[in-house]
């Protein structure tokens, strides 16, 4: 028998040192490189597009502030005369009103639905309830706007509740906006709540807590960052939603805080003004971008504030 040390070729199976060192040299993997490259490209492209949009908005917005004093923009009333009607505070009020109404409806309902689905519903009920809730998110916003205009205002507000509301008003727009964001808040919050480890629930129940206490005092705080993210996402959608508020919220600048009156929001202003014929470079044209930028900043600030709040209160598990 030849001594095994002299045998070349693949290492013998089983124990012992291989006769020749195994080949560990790097191998070319062209497919891998290609995939990595194309993935990096798509990631880079989406960042690029975002910055492109910001740049495109920023340019005309800055020229607007060359044409119009900033005090006229952040003003309660349009200046008289034939200049651009620059006051933006009424638009902020409109957005604020509808958004607050939407959240007042959607946060309790969305969170309640999420808590029910995640903590109370049987697995079977949950299996068909959650997709049903999510289905609501697929309803086109023009349908919601129609619904607000021709059902909520005349039938619910004026009819059933007997309120004296305008044909277009912030109640209808805000409430329907709320309905629109319920699925977002419910579904995302449910994800966050279900992600809380079962061990925490067991720990709580084993100490004699009931389900509600467990949900409110252990599960919800533990899921807070996810729940807050869900609410912020809903809020951003409400702030940015255009169709509902344009159709049902009204098209007049209004500084009153009464939701039964019509209020134009920032988004409605953009949608309505964009339809007019404003020559490129005119103050009216540029104002669209200024309001767009403001909308962007408002959303950004809301996000930043909510991140700060969550940092302060979250209970990471």
């Amino acid at each position, binding site marked *: 028998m030849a001594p095994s040390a002299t045998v070349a070729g693949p290492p013998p199976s089983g124990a012992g040192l291989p006769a020749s060192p195994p080949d560990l040299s790097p191998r070319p993997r062209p497919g891998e490189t290609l995939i990595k490259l194309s993935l990096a490209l798509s990631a880079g492209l989406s960042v690029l597009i975002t910055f492109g949009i910001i740049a495109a908005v920023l340019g005309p917005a800055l020229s607007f502030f060359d044409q119009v004093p900033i005090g006229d923009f952040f003003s309660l009333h349009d200046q008289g005369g034939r200049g651009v009607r620059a006051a933006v505070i009424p638009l902020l009020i409109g957005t604020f009103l509808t958004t607050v109404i939407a959240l007042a409806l959607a946060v309790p309902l969305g969170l309640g639905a999420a808590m029910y689905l995640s903590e109370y519903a049987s697995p079977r009920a949950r299996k068909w309830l959650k997709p049903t809730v999510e289905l609501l998110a697929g309803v086109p916003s023009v349908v919601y706007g129609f619904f607000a205009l021709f059902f909520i205002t005349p039938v619910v507000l004026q009819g059933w509740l007997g309120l004296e509301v305008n044909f277009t008003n912030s109640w209808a727009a805000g409430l329907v906006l709320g309905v629109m964001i319920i699925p977002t808040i419910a579904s995302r919050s449910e994800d966050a709540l279900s992600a809380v480890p079962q061990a925490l629930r067991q720990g709580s129940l084993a100490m004699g807590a009931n389900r509600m206490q467990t949900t409110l005092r252990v599960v919800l705080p533990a899921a807070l960052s996810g729940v807050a993210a869900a609410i912020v996402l809903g809020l951003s959608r409400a702030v940015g939603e255009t169709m509902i508020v344009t159709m049902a919220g009204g098209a007049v600048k209004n500084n009153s805080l009464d939701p039964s009156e019509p209020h134009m929001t920032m988004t409605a202003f953009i949608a309505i003004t964009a339809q007019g014929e404003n020559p490129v470079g005119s103050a009216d044209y540029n104002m669209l971008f200024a309001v767009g930028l403001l909308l962007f900043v408002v959303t950004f600030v809301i996000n930043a504030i909510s991140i700060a709040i969550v940092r302060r209160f979250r*209970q990471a598990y």
Partner: protein
Amino acid sequence: MSKMPAEATANGTHTPHSEAPMTTFVSQAGHEPLPKLPPDPVMETKALNVFYGDFHAVHDVDLAFGRNEITALIGPSGCGKSTVLRCLNRMNDLVPGARVEGEVTYHGQNIYAKDVDPIAVRTHIGMVFQKPNPFPKSIYDNIAYGPRVTGMKVDSMDDLVEEALRGAALWDEVKDKLKQSAIGLSGGQQQRLCIARTIATKPDVILMDEPCSALDPIATARIEDLMLELKDDYTIVIVTHNMQQAARVSDRTAFFTAKPDKTTGNRTGQLVEYDLTNTIFSNPSDQRTEDYISGRFG
């Protein structure tokens, strides 16, 4: 104290320890000789059967847990120790598809009776889990949670928190950081926090499911010492895979095994032998017990 049913203390007819010399052994953990069976059991299981769906997990378990004693449940993996333990405070209610037959009595009252509130049961019978599961709250709030949710009348929550943390031998390590998150503690500290959290609600019985399995030997030794201290005030049931641990801390040991069903092949857990820990480890009456504790089986 006030939580215990009145009939629990009304029983003066049981045989005192010294009058049963034939069945008395010296416990390793205790100092007094113990009778063969707990004379005044705090909890008992009678013909306990547990099913998960169609799966028969535990068959006919009869056990009695003595007051101020530590009872260890041992046996190979999957034989139903955790299942039996979870029946003792109705934690199995939380498992979808779980079904319990037979009786589990607590001071003579069947906790599976129709008119028993499982939440009330759990305020008397606490549980410490295998993996430490502190709430992602401050150390203080972890301890205060139980008393708060159960609406315990507390003179001073600060005192109660200190008492519970001292009881779990954790006070000195955390007294300066009560407001910090419990998640920052080490695994052993977290487990002692979970024990502290449980004793803060002043339960009567403490169930522990492999409480030391995630801990190093030093932390394990601390928790074992703690159990021996706690037994003066509580009745403790512990599941463990550690034979030495069972021998060191427990007064009585129940050995379980899983027997394959002849027709279905399902491995149904059953109680093989229940006796004083001394007897189980020195002179078991069943061959399977002997094989298991000597490491030949399981």
